Each structure stands twice: as structure tokens, then as C-alpha cells.
């Protein structure tokens, strides 16, 4: 079973800075929700996890880990958690979750929002 370090949303940038300085690699980010909303950051160096309870507003770590923008866009689109300061913000167009059939032609039976 995996051990977590729990941090507050405000400490995310400081944590990212520290990990970057240590030379860790961002392995992945994901979101899950049960009793609370949790965002998990996984890094290579120490197999560490950081968990943010509650449904937070996140600050992007793409300044320190450029690949983070893709995970952050995914979390933002599929879980509705706003992420501030992403280096590339697809503005909901990565998965296009606001449209039922995103790649169908508009007006051909889709419910375009």
C-alpha cells in the first residue's frame, strides 16, 4: 500500500520547486474523489505522493515540470477542478467534454453546448 504526504493546495508550488531541485521526474498526476476530492502528484525520486483533500483550486506546476500541463488540462476538463497558470491551456478542447459528440459535425444530431 502506498504512503502519502498530504499538503494543502497553497503548498503545491513550493513542493514542485523542491522536487525539481532534487531532480525528481513527474511521473503522473491524477484526481479521485470519495469523501473528499484528492489530487495526487507522483514523482520518480522517492515514489512520493502528495494528496490534496477537498476540491481545491489548483496552481499549475508546469513552470517546474513542463509536462504537467497535459495532466492539469485533463483534471480540469474531466473533474472540473480549475487550474491556474497552465503553460498550455486547451480551454476544454482536449477531451471536449462539454459536447456529447465532440467530433461530429455541428447540427448533425449533436447537442452542441
Amino acid at each position, binding site marked *: *500500500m*502506498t504512503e*502519502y504526504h498530504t499538503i494543502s493546495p497553497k503548498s503545491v508550488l513550493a513542493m514542485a520547486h523542491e522536487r525539481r531541485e532534487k531532480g525528481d*521526474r*513527474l*511521473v*503522473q498526476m*491524477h484526481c*479521485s474523489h*470519495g469523501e473528499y476530492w484528492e489530487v*495526487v502528484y*507522483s514523482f520518480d525520486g522517492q*515514489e512520493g*505522493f502528495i494528496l490534496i483533500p477537498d476540491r481545491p483550486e489548483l496552481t499549475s506546476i508546469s513552470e517546474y*515540470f*513542463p*509536462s504537467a*500541463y*497535459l495532466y492539469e488540462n485533463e483534471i480540469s476538463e474531466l473533474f472540473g477542478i480549475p487550474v491556474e497558470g497552465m503553460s*498550455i491551456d*486547451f480551454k476544454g*478542447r*482536449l*477531451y*471536449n*467534454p462539454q459536447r456529447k459528440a*465532440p*467530433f461530429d459535425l455541428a447540427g448533425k444530431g449533436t447537442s452542441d453546448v
Partner: protein
Amino acid sequence: MSEHTIVPFGPQHPVFPEPIHFDLKLEDEKIVDAFPSIGYIHRGLEILTTEHDFMEMAYVAERICGICSFIHGMGYCQAIEGLMGIDVPKRAQYLRVIWSEFSRLHSHLMWLGLLADAMGFESLFMHSWRVRELILDIFEESTGGRVIFGVVKPGGLRRDMDADMVKTIRKQLPVIKKGIDEVAKVFLKDTSVRLRLSGMGYLSPDETRALGCVGPMARASGLAMDTRKDSPYSSYGDFSFDVVTENSCDSWARVAVRVKELYQSISIIEQAAVGLPEGGIWTKPMGFPPAADQYTRLEQPRGEVVYYVKGNATKNLARFRVRTPTFANVPSMVHLIKRAELADVGLLVLTIDPCISCTER
């Protein structure tokens, strides 16, 4: 003043084996920006964990992708085994390694063929796939399936391999190796392949690390990253092999890494077949996954894959998450396209060996 043109690229494109869409912002023929869109084949497989119990989910995990199906099933089972504290019998671990490495052979040969086809080298494409066919035959004979095998389950395996099958595999390995020798010579020595791929899609080691690349993409830029070595899972620690790297950091290096990994996989399979222990192949999971989390990593043909499972002490999991290697390689793909010529986009996308089915789940 330069004018920008937006060109929609994909999802249906002769070079793309799977659907991904890009909006390419062009200045003449040069791409200055690229915006990917995915979602064509998002099937919501992760959420199915609320409908299927944790044993059935192994079947769902296998269906994430038709190429790495076995390793997806194995990764899911490994996560469940870690969560529930199950010891997998040694024989099952060795057999998992054998099927995993055959999956790598099959995936790399398929990719090499697709790349050859994209370059217009059709005979090389057909020869690569001819060799791949030998591996699919072994899958069929040993598991009953050529794409989805259904042999892996939490705690071990559903199906054993008898002595005759192991003998057949050992007999076929030199035949496969001979076939690989023929295509490898062309991929590594042929001038037209070299001219088309050398220098294309250069990604420095620093960029590779910063963009979070995994698998052959990272190893082709000189980063010796391989989960099988870095944190050995199953029985990989029992086998002798070196991480394959290349230093030219371009599309040709990505080909060279994959070609050399073909030989590495054959060596690992040979070692596992020779040392295959006797014994059982399944430890029965007792009870339900506890209310805790487990995170596990494996090396798929395309790179590191991450599985996360969260139990809630019922037959269903609270959360199942897969971070596939292609997902990790998308930032580098966007980065490479941004500096490319329009004519190179198809081939560049292909060099990362994208699996969109995996990425979208």
C-alpha cells in the same frame, strides 16, 4: 507580415494508425503551433470499475489496448496484488514475463512495419509484419487468442504452459531471430531509411527529461530509463539484460532502440523459458480489496505505464486510473511538431509510437 493558416490534421489520415486530431498553425509550410484534440475513442473504462468487481476488471484492463493487452491486464493485476498483499507464484511470474516480452516483440515489429509503410517502404513493412505473424501464432497456440488473451487474473494466471509449449517457444525463437535479422539490417543500414529519419525530430536529453518522455522516446535521447531495471517487477530481477540507449536523439535513434530491444526481448524470453520454475500458477485472493491505495509501474513496449487502484473494502474499486506511455509522450509530440515541416508531421507523430486507444482509455 506573415500570415498564419490553420490546417486540421487527422483524425483520419493515411499515416495515423489511430485517430488523433491536430489543429496546426502554419507559416507557409512551417508549423508554429499545434493543438491536439483527443476523445474519439474515450470509452470510460476507468469508471467501469464501479460496475464490475475487481476480478472482472482484469478483462476490462486487457481491453484498454489491442497491442499491449497482456501488459495492461498484468499491470492491473499487479496493482490489485499489491493492494491485497497477494504473493504471485514464481512460475506465474515467469510466464507473465514471457508473454510480456512477446507482446513487446509484437508491438515493436508492428510499429517498425507501420513506420516503413509511412516512409513508402512497403516491402519492409510486409517483411516486418511477416515476422510479427510468427509471434501472433505463438500467442494463439499458448493462450488461444491473438489479440486479447484472457490468461492473467489477480493472483496469477488462468492458464499454464505445458512442457511441449515451452519447447515450441524455444524452437521458434531462433526462427524469429532470423526474421528479425533480415529486417533489422535494412532498418539500421539502409541509406534511404537513414536519410529519411536521421536528424528528424531531434529532442535533446534535457528536453526529453523536462517533457516527461518515457520508453524508447527517452532511451533514444540517451536517458537510461526502463522500469524493468529501475524498479524490477514480477521476476525481471532474475534476468540479465541491459537498458538499450542511443545518443543521436532523432527519429532514427528511436528506430534503433526498438530494433535492439527486439533482441533483448528474445534473450529475456530464452532465459525465462530455460529457468521456468515448477509449481502453481495462482494464489486465490481472499476477501475484497481493502480501503487503501496502490500504485504500480511496468514497462510497456511504448514505455512506463502507471496503474493506480483505490479499494473501499467492497467488491468494486473506488478508483482505477491508468497513465499510459503515450499520454506521457504527448507533450514531446506537440513540441516536435511545433518545429517541423507540414510534410513531416505524419512520420513524426508515428515515431513516438502513439497508442491513442491506451491514451484515451
